[in-house]
């Protein structure tokens, strides 16, 4: 469907800034209108007014009041623009605005003088708008920009990588150097081995040198040494020794004399002190002295035994006095033992009788009897008590006797013993009561049977008791046990008396025997024996002392004899030493002058001898060292020196190589222990990773932008046919096919137009085109886009060329005019505004040449009659451009 043209019929500026009066133009429905007028006559204001009416959102000025009349097909529409708003009416009825192209495309329908010059800031904006519109409202440039990466992204990472690489290279160089050093090790070790081998000869060579030197020195010393060889037999101190020996000899002789004198004196003393006593062994005297002391002990024993005998005899005599009226003999110990047995039997029978009596009494209901007719105690306790009583009695007697003999304190002990005896004798114990039995007949019979048996046994025992009393002469009325114990005591005392007598006799015999022995010994030593043991002891001690003094004198004599012998030996030694001195010196005894000469020659001899010794030692040492040396022998000292110099050199070389090897091994060990390569490598790897990450960002951005490019390219392909091709066609027509229009979308400043100059063979940017060509390019682009937009919108608004062809040459003007003619033929209304009347003529001529209708010319000077000219251009200031809405949002 073809679009309809919206033709301007009338335009009146009712009120406009800068114009004092309203004025109007009438096109009379002409397709082409040329409005001519001088500068500031209101041409641009008319154009602005027209666009304000058509696109009030784009060209809004609240101070403007405009009315206009249009023809749209068969309809005549009135438009009134006031307060920035345009209202439309058709035959007095308000109607919708015609479907004009979108606001942002409005400028495509007007080419102003500024754009023609290419100085308009919005040529690029226009291009962007065109591009964006072509892109369906998307902004590829912005999308591309948001996906992009900074221009120098990765520069810092690259720098860090370079640094890490340099660090690693430095370490690697160091390691490479040490690797080379390590490679040298084998050679160095070989050299070290060879040098050590040669250097090892050095000690042998030194030994060879010392051997040769020692031999030479010995050859020099030995003849001189022979000359003073006699001095070898003496020493430097020979004369001193001679004098010392002589002096010592004299001293020793004096000592000998003194000792011989002392010996004589001691002999005389010994003879004086020895006396008439025979010389006996001191041990014999000591043995006798022990015998004498034993004799003293035996003497004391005799006295003690006599005292004991006297006590026993006294006690026996007293007993004999007390028992002088009795004729019976003392019972023997066996009889006493039998009596003890009888006593036990008696007590047992008595206890049974008592128990039986108690039973019988209980059976008869009476109290049992508690007394006994016979009371010898048979139990162990009774025997212990009896024994204690005996001890107390003996103690009493002994204490009394001791008090009489030794000390009155023993009377106290006697008193204690007597008290104990009294308490023991007065002691008695009650018999225990039996337990009452039952009183049955069998029991009674049993008891009675037992009682009879017991009575029979008691009768036997009573008879036996009478026998004992008779035998022991016991008196009736006294306790049998006490009497028997008294008999036992008396028997003991009699035994003790006999024993004491026997001991005393034995002691006296032994005493006499020992005293006789001592007396005989003293008599043998010409000593009159003393009468007492103490005297004998004193005599024996005197003998012992005499023997001791004698022994000491003899010992002194013996020592003096030894000293005399030693002194004699010393004298002989000194004499021998003196003789040896001369003999050693090769002289006869007494050749003192010759000896002195030898001593004077001693110093030079010793010096030569020492020197010879040193050389001999050196020679021996050298030969020892050379024991295993089977190698080379020098023919001369020079040859030896040369070889030694070589060995020294090799030794130095070995030291040097040893140091080098050590240094390399240390360096290698240090590097093996480090991890600097690992660190540097890790740093490098991290830096590479960081840079790689940046590159990935770049790649990602490139891939994302690739999509934008792809889509944009696809969009270009899809829109080039209707619009750009038309624009290119027009532009090529305008420029006589010298230029082809291009739309650059990927520039840094966004999309823009370019021209490909076929003469120059390259693309030329808008600012580098000539003014005319630039205008033609814009004209072509806008016309093409305007046509397309109008076709799509359905309405073709008037196309306004505001002095667009002022600088265009005739040829190109014709080309433009041809295009305009085509538009006119298609039904477009073209309004050309110019200040040049020549342009009016050009349009008229071209219309004539192309058989077109002459344009309707409106002279503003006439229309306005100059009175209505605007006061100034600034009064017709246009409002600021609003933001462009997206096409799809319309």
């Amino acid at each position: 469907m073809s679009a309809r043209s919206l033709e301007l019929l009338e335009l009146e500026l009712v009120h406009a800034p800068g114009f004092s009066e309203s004025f109007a133009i009438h096109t009379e429905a002409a397709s082409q209108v040329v409005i001519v007028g001088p500068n500031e006559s209101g041409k641009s204001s008319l154009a602005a007014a027209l666009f304000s009416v058509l696109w009030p959102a784009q060209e809004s000025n609240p101070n403007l009041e405009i009315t206009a009349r249009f023809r749209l097909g068969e309809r005549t529409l009135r438009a009134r623009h006031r307060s920035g708003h345009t209202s439309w009416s058709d035959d007095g009825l308000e109607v919708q605005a015609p479907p004009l192209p979108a606001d942002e495309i409005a400028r495509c329908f007007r080419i102003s003088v500024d754009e023609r010059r290419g100085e308009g800031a919005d040529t690029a904006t226009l291009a962007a708008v065109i591009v964006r519109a072509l892109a369906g409202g998307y902004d590829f440039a912005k999308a591309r920009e948001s996906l992009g990466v900074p221009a120098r992204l990765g520069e810092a990472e690259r720098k860090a990588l370079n640094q890490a690489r340099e660090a690693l290279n430095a370490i690697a160089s160091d390691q490479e150097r040490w690797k080379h050093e390590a490679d040298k090790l084998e050679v160095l070790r070989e050299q070290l081995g060879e040098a050590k081998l040669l250097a090892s000869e050095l000690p042998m060579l030194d030994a060879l040198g010392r051997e040769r030197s020692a031999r030479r020195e010995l050859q020099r010393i030995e003849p001189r040494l022979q000359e003073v060889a006699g001095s070898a037999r003496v020493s430097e101190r020979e004369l001193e020794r001679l004098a010392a020996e002589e002096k010592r000899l004299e001293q020793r002789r004096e000592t000998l004399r003194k000792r011989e004198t002392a010996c004589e004196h001691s002999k005389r003393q010994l003879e004086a002190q020895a006396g008439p006593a025979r010389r006996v062994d001191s041990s014999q005297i000591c043995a006798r002295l022990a015998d004498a002391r034993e004799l003293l002990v035996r003497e004391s024993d005799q006295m003690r035994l006599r005292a004991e005998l006297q006590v026993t005899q006294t006690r026996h005599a007293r007993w004999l006095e007390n028992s002088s009226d009795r004729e019976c003999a003392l019972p023997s110990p066996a009889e006493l033992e039998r009596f003890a047995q009888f006593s036990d039997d008696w007590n047992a029978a008595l206890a049974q009788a008592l128990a039986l009596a108690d039973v019988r009494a209980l059976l008869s209901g009476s109290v049992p009897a508690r007394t006994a007719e016979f009371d010898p105690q048979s139990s162990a306790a009774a025997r212990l008590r009896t024994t204690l009583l005996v001890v107390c009695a003996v103690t009493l007697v002994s204490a009394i006797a001791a008090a009489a003999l030794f000390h009155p304190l023993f009377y106290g002990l006697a008193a204690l013993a007597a008290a104990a005896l009294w308490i023991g004798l007065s002691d008695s114990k009650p018999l225990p009561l039996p337990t009452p039995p039952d009183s049955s007949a069998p029991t009674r019979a049993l008891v009675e049977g037992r009682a009879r048996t017991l009575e029979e046994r008691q009768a036997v025992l009573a008879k036996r008791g009478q026998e004992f009393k008779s035998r022991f002469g016991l008196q009736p009325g006294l306790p049998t046990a006490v009497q028997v114990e008294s008999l036992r005591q008396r028997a003991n005392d009699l035994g003790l008396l006999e024993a004491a007598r026997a001991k005393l006799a034995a002691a006296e015999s032994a005493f006499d025997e020992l005293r006789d022995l001592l007396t005989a010994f003293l008599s043998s030593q010409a000593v009159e024996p003393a009468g007492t043991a103490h005297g004998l002891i004193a005599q024996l001690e005197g003998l012992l002392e005499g023997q001791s003094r004698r022994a000491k004198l003899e010992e002194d004599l013996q020592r003096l004899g030894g000293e005399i012998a030693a002194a004699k030996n010393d004298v002989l030694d000194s004499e021998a030493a003196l003789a040896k001195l001369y003999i050693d010196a090769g002289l006869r005894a007494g050749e003192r002058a010759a000896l002195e000469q030898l001593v004077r020659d001693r110093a030079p001899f010793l010096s030569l001898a020492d020197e010879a010794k040193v050389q001999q030692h050196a020679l021996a040492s050298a030969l020892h060292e050379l024991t295993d040396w089977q190698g080379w022998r020098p023919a001369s000292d020079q040859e030896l020196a040369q070889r030694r110099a070589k060995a020294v050199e090799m030794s130095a070389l070995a030291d040097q190589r040893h140091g080098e090897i050590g240094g390399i091994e240390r360096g290698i060990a240090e590097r093996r222990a480090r991890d600097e390569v690992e660190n540097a490598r890790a740093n490098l790897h991290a830096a590479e990773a960081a840079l790689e990450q940046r590159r990935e960002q770049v790649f990602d951005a490139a891939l994302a932008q690739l999509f934008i490019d792809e889509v944009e390219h696809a969009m270009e392909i899809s829109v080039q046919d209707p619009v750009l091709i038309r624009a290119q066609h027009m532009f090529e027509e305008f420029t006589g096919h010298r230029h082809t229009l291009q739309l650059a979308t990927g520039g840094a400043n966004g999309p823009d137009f370019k021209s490909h100059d076929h003469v120059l063979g390259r693309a030329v940017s808008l600012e580098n085109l000539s003014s005319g060509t630039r205008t033609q390019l814009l004209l072509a682009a806008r016309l093409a886009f305007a046509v397309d937009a109008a076709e799509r919108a359905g309405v073709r608004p008037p196309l306004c060329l505001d002095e667009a062809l002022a600088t265009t040459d005739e040829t190109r003007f014709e080309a433009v005019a041809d295009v305009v003619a085509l538009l006119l033929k298609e039904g477009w209304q073209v309004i050309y505004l110019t200040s040049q009347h020549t342009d009016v003529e050009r349009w008229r001529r071209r219309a004539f040449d192309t058989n077109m209708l002459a344009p309707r010319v409106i002279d503003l000077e006439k229309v306005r009659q100059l009175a209505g000219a605007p006061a100034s251009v600034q009064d017709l200031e246009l409002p600021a451009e609003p933001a462009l809405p997206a096409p799809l949002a319309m």
Partner: protein
Amino acid sequence: MFCGDVHLGRRPSGLPLDLKEQSGLSARDLGPKAALERAVAEACRERVDAFVFAGDVVQQENSVFEAFGALSRCIEPLARAAIRIFGVAGNHDVETLPRLASSFPQFQLLGAKGRWEDCVLQGRSGPRIALRGWSFPAQHVSESPFTHPRPDAPEDVCAVLGVVHGDLDDARSRYAPLRRRDLEADSIVKGWFLGHIHKPSLDASAQRPIGYLGSLSALDRTETGRHGPWIVAVENSGALSIEQRALAPLAFEDVSFDVSDWTDGAAFEQALRAKYAAVREARASGANSARAVGFNVSLYGATPAFKALRAKLAEFDEGRLLSAEFDGLLCFVADIDDRTHEPVDLMRLALSTDPAGLLARRLLALQDESSLLAQELIGRALESIEASAPRREFLGALGPPLWSDTQVRSRLLRAGWRALEKLEATREGRPA
């Protein structure tokens, strides 16, 4: 025990910048030396008969001194435990291993000077086997090691195990190209244990395994999966039983999250924590013994919470690495590949002829393997990358980008979504 590429002297990358502060660990604790020490300790504990290196034991740059010293110290315990040590030289240790062999009598270099060599090994309680090996004679070897003659099979051995360092099925490689059929053709060899490629590919269950042992420990975030030495037991019948010990102190894992159900940015952190917990449980169960695990996170899908998620992901760019430390195990995010986008109906959008529609058509085309448009796009993308690569900042510093078509397609998809996002933002009248 077979040990793949160790690369002593190289430090692992992709670790958090504040590793020490977070966990007290250093890069050294997670590096090849620590891994080798673990392997050696395991070998001593298991009382293996032999410890076999498959080349690239040391990093070439510092093989001269540092790595050599470290290697000597590491394998001393093996010698003390009377464990025999074998190795073949790889392209990185052409110089080091021969020197080690000459200065360390317990170490035996197999196949020195590029000549195949067999070495018979009597197990302590097991059968006699032979190790067949070949060592790099120079840093670059463009011909297959199998062009050199191999020795006859040793007698009285129940199995021959092969170890070699090289590029499998890459005929143009300068690192000893190996053809699988050559390996298979050497019929007396019961299994081939290869070095060079760091991703393990040995199939332990195969009757006649042929594959890479992989690096002993992950060296960068691309070396995902289990890493560690392999214990190969040989039965009297010659049958092999193979087990990998995941002793690497550092591991990386790829993890993908579909963000379609996410309603806010916190969902990302929750998903991450769940992954961390899974790793921790695996460690507790003894499945691995890594001290640090890094995750290569890939996010894909469309979510209404796109902007909130973007803000959360920006934290990663700001260096907050979303790490967590559990009882000696550090979990961290090594990388995030963000392929998320706003919920857009591409099919509907592609019906439009405006730029967004045209872009949507291209995104759809990229999702179609057979699309000619996609192929064109990939071609142009490669041109664009080649044009961008020689920027002054990168020229001479980085090697040329070697991307496969699949990688380019993937990158293009991500870039396309980003371009669509940015383009839509420029559209007139688009709601903010």
